[in-house]
């Protein structure tokens, strides 16, 4: 047991360190800006007085490391400062949107993970048949499609006929079933984008194992192909599958950006894109930090889970 805990603690420490360096990077990136941030935002025509006042307001008159520490301490407590564009506290802007984005990502994950595992197992079972080839060709093409293409095709097919709304406006008062219905198209788009990758990996991981002697043994004992795959191949194929599932979940967290914009869904991604257009640095920094944290956390979970699923990796040496 202790080996597992030290492994988890080590990974967690490494993850925290990565996150710390990322936060330095996200904060420090604004320091790279040629010239003065305040002048840049206010434009050429700003008088020296307004620039000075704006600098004081942003805290730019303080040295960089003091500002970084203040920013980080605030961020850890959930206070990201105020937006430049509308002077509202960023925490308020983010609060509901974070929930919306997580909801959409989880919704897509709830559809895509079972679907892709099932398709992957079936493709491995019926390998080199028409089913397998079609599934593979479809997967390869859907990997190479841009998200907005998939999204607009879905809108064209499903929203045109009035089956589903093409805009996913939700607010806290919307009921759960209604939210599920309104966010179905964005969730389906994300599902189509990530399912292909997970399915191909599941298939490849299982097929890799099918040549091993123990699988042949199982087959010679007269087991059905389905049982061989589910009870003998799948448990050993779990590590790569878990890794790719977590990677795709991490991808979902960032992939939502484009999909949210297409479907006008009030999530973090849309907020970030709007803020980029307005060059609203504090908001972009805050959202980038949240996305990066989620990404690092998911990769960390994948690492730990795939190690746990393989005893050989726990008891190394």
């Amino acid at each position, binding site marked *: 047991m202790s080996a597992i805990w030290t492994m988890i603690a080590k990974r967690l420490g490494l993850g925290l360190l*990565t996150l710390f*360096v*990322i936060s330095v*990077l*996200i904060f420090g*990136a*604004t320091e*790279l*800006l040629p010239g003065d941030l305040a002048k840049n935002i206010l434009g050429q025509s700003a008088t020296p007085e307004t620039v000075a006042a704006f600098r004081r307001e942003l805290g730019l008159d303080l040295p960089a490391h003091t500002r970084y520490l203040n920013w980080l301490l605030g961020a850890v407590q959930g206070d990201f400062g105020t937006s430049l564009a509308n002077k509202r506290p960023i925490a308020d802007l983010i609060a509901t949107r974070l929930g919306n984005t997580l909801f959409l990502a989880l919704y897509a994950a709830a559809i895509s993970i079972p679907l892709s595992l099932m398709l992957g197992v079936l493709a491995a079972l019926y390998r*080199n048949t028409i089913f397998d080839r079609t599934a593979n060709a479809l997967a*390869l*093409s859907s*990997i*190479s*499609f*841009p*998200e*907005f*293409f998939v999204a*607009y*095709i879905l*809108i*064209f097919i499903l*929203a*045109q006929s009035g089956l589903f709304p*093409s805009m996913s406006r939700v607010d806290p008062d919307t009921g759960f079933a209604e939210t599920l219905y309104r966010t179905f198209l964005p969730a389906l788009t994300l599902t189509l984008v990530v399912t292909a990758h997970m399915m191909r990996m599941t298939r490849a991981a299982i097929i890799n194992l099918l040549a091993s002697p123990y699988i042949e043994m199982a087959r010679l004992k007269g087991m059905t192909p389905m049982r061989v795959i589910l009870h003998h191949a799948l448990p050993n194929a779990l590590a790569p599958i878990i890794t790719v599932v977590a990677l795709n979940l*991490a991808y979902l*967290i*960032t*992939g939502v*950006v*484009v999909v949210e*914009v*297409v479907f006008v869904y009030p999530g973090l991604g849309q907020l*970030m*894109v709007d*803020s*980029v*257009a307005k*060059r*609203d*640095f504090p908001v*972009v*920094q805050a*959202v*980038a930090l949240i*996305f*990066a944290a989620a*990404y*690092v956390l998911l*990769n960390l979970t994948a690492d730990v889970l795939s190690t746990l699923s393989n005893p050989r990796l726990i008891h190394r040496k």
Partner: protein
Amino acid sequence: MNVLITLFWIAVAIAGAMAAGWLFRAAAVALTRGGTARALRTAPVTAGFGMLVILLYVLVALFAPLIAPYAEREVVGAQFLPWDSTHVFGTDNLGRDTLSRLIYGARNTVGIAFATTALAFAMGAILGLLAATVGGWLDQILSRIVDILMAIPALIFSLLLLTIFGTSVPTLILVIATIDSTRVFRLARSVALNIVVMDYIEAAKLRGEGLWRLITREILPNALAPLVAEFGLRFCFVFLAISALSFLGVGVQPPTADWGSMVRENAALITFGDVTPLLPAGAIALLTVAVNFVVDWMLHRASGLKE
């Protein structure tokens, strides 16, 4: 009924694509000699189709002013005109000819993506090979930097950098190339690590070959095959990333014709049942599918794998 007709047309399109790929492969085999012809003869039909599409895109991009019926930024009529004989795909939100903008878009979008990939490769490959050859502290520092950069989701990182440096084409190319070069670095380093332990590298070092000569003459030729396949894959990722950024309005800026921003500008049409906004998106998808088909074949050949 409608579904059946759609399915029929999809089947026709796939059959047509396969036939075109087969014909193109046959023509390519007839026109080339020696090793190239032999390699092409064993290529799958999908790879033939992929090469044909890539060739067509390159031709359209090169000869855009000759093919396009109107100029890139010329307003030729009312906004959102429907498809007819004067404007094959109608006009866009400002009354510019959609077909002409699609054709110029091939030049801009593909050109920018290609330049970005080339830059990413130059940076990533040189640093990766250097890290593997020199080793020691240089390798450690570069690898840790790359680890950190790769821990930030690419789209989010590019959005952050574009906020800071503003959106212009040179900035866009630099930002995406920097982010993407980290992935190239990883591959180049791991490929080169297997090469630097070879005896002939040792011999070259004893012969007194300098670092630059060692990298370009001894290591690079042997690391080329996986790097070339990776170039195709990277191109797809870069192409999709730039299109996504343009679609979000922070990539290539108007009035430059660009497929990603064309989708964004005309997206409103889709809710009225007009497929025009799907055309630029489809153009992006077709090229990435084509490149993927060719890369699939090249990887298959390089690894010598048989299914």
